[in-house]
């Protein structure tokens, strides 16, 4: 493939997205697109290095694109001009088929499983509809704490994102109602009681909004009261603690993002330069940095009953 005329779409301008767009820009690829519908927050800055405190509140995709475009990074591979990044501050599921079909590769660093499922479905759909004229490889990165993975999905050739859904951890913690209602023993029980039972009783017409400091404070006070009432040790209870229990916040650090994003970009470049054979190459790479730094790769088997990719079997 001719690398001088390559267009890559990057999904997400968060921890992985910033790393992906930086690394691909350093390869001097001419045109990169980046999509994200979020705005920048202070808690992003320990890893989303294209942003600074001045950018808080601004759209991530625009600021990331501007950070790269401003530097005027020369294109490589015989192309004149600078690397150009096009931002899309929007929900990626609003992209139509024509827009998506213009890209050679899609690299994702999303934080949502649903968005990944959508693009996975869309790319397989495009492949079928075009009768294999348009086959866009999808490289998906994901991290949590010191662990991460990188998945290479080529519609029709490899297993797809949907096939690997069952390998995702199930981290939804649920508690029996009787524990919350009559036998609370931990702070989490008190917080869930405030959230699931007290809030709807007090505000039957609206769910709580964890972005609202007032709502959070209300939940905190009710949780604290509950903990006091049941003699549960509460010196660690803060609004941050309440948020941590009610909202699944993923631990994240720059190193893991850099490793997984680097892995995604390496796969993208290897694909563009025909270094790997998509019919036989390993497709999933798993990384764990908690004890040593372990990385291994294997070819994920296609799920024969997969609702998305079994049409190709």
């Amino acid at each position, binding site marked *: 493939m001719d690398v001088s005329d390559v267009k890559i779409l990057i999904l997400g301008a968060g921890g992985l997205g910033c790393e992906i767009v930086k690394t691909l820009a350093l390869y001097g690829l001419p045109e990169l697109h980046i999509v994200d519908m979020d705005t920048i927050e202070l808690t992003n800055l320990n890893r989303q290095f294209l942003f600074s405190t001045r950018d808080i509140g601004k759209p991530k995709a625009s600021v990331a694109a501007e950070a790269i475009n401003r530097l005027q990074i020369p294109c490589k591979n015989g192309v004149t001009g600078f690397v150009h990044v096009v931002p899309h501050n929007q929900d990626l599921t609003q992209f139509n088929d024509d827009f998506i079909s213009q890209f050679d590769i899609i690299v994702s660093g999303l934080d949502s499983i649903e968005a990944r499922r959508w693009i996975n479905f869309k790319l397989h759909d495009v492949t079928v509809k075009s009768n294999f004229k348009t086959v866009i490889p999808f490289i998906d990165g994901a991290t949590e704490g010191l662990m991460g993975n990188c998945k290479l999905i080529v519609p029709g050739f490899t297993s797809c994102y949907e096939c690997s859904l069952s390998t995702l951890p199930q981290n939804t913690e649920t508690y029996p109602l009787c524990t919350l209602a009559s036998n609370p023993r931990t702070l989490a029980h008190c917080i869930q009681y405030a959230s699931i039972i007290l809030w709807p009783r007090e505000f039957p017409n609206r769910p709580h909004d964890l972005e609202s400091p007032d709502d959070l404070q209300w939940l905190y006070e009710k949780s604290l009261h509950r903990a006091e009432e*049941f003699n549960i040790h509460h010196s660690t209870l803060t609004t941050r603690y309440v948020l941590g229990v009610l909202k699944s916040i993923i631990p994240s650090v720059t190193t893991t993002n850099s490793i997984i994003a680097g892995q995604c970009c390496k796969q993208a470049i290897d694909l563009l330069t025909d270094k790997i054979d998509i019919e036989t190459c390993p497709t999933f790479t798993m990384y764990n940095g908690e004890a040593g730094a372990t990385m291994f790769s294997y070819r994920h088997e296609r799920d024969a009953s997969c609702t998305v990719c079994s049409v190709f079997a």
Partner: protein
Amino acid sequence: MINTSFDSNQGGLSCIRTSVKDQGPRALVQVMADQINGGLDDRYDRQLMIWGHSGQDLLSQSHVCVVDDNQTLLMRECVKSLALMGIHEITVVFGSSNGSDFVNKSNSDILGFDALESMNPDVTFHIWNENAVPIDSQHKLWNSFSIVICLCTAGPLLQRVMKLSAVPLIMASTNDNLGFVRLIGSEPHCVIDSHGHFTFDLRLNRMWPELAEYHESFDVKNMSQEEVSSLPYSVLLYNVGKSLKSKNIPINRKSVRAEFIELHDSILSGPLTNDLNFVEAERSSFLLYDQSGPFPHNLTNILNSFHAEPNSTINRWVYQFVRCIRIFYDLRGDLPVSAFIPDMESSTKLFNAQKAVYQRKAAKDKSEIMRILAKENYSLIPEPLIDKMLENLKHLDAIKMGSLSSATRTISEKPKFNKLLSLQNDRHDTTFVSPAMASILGAMVSQECVKLLTHQYVPVENTLLYDGDSNETSTFIL
């Protein structure tokens, strides 16, 4: 602030803050206290979930030196990660031949120093040309660093680094699709918290009198259904164990399960799966099998790793603490009890009562540990660290670091590693590193650096080879 030269008249040496390892115990008492740093919380929130305030506080007092002949992308990626994670002070020493364009070119560079410096206002940078740093490897400047990261593969700068002996050293390089990271140190490295998975030990077969009394206080067979439902699973387990013993039936998975069903069906109706405390009890039935509490191998490993008291402060504290745990164990025949027990489906009242039994014993054991520590003259260990280690007995560990003398040894089982070394020895051009390789290796280097600084998670023991052709790593001792 960027210092572009090393000048002791302008405060050069004196402005370098002492690194954590050289600070007196008093400073570390603060560090270990897990205090909340208000404003810092939000920026580091997502990584505080990984290593906590105690880890972050150690980073915020560290001074890391990164040495590289050329200003490679690998070095920039490494410095970027260190800066973002909140290392207090970063000194970059670069070779004299390529230095000058470094700062000049930085404006148009995505990972230039202007960019790196603006990434985190908490970090102080120093950029030094090799001609400006002391030639003597024993100079106190070198000892003021918490860790030195060496990315050069040849030349006078490497020769100088190879003479450093007191400071932990990380060496790394990459060529084509291969990269390696090696951890070098004059003594083993102690881990305060490996964050590994483990199961609670409730001491159900090694009870102290109060715990036995508590468990004996329930006449389970004569309780109402409601009362039985409010019991923590440990009480159910205890009763099953006792009943099997009285019948002289050996305790194993099958016998425990049968006994559980019998106990359940004699009091409650419906399937066992309807009663959460029974479900939990069955899931934890292994707690009945474990007859003895042998001295854990991770603690033995720490004691065996050192021939003398460790030099670095935290290593010394961990070693001293584990020595006292061994003394305690030899006296009592068991480890100190943890104050933390898992949540058990039960009434609040019974759970709190049971928790209090464990907490009282844990407090008593801790005070005995404190007495042993004082008797051994180990009184400098900060109490918050003692609490943390008591909580983490199964997560303490020691790993062996590599030595400088073996730094360039080849090994026959690792042809790719030998290839990498030979490329270096041929003074192959290492200035070009692919952006992806730099991103991966630079981050791996800084992650190992942070593991060493925080004494959390287990560092590589002691050489890591990353193979970009197969997308796999392998670890070996060199």
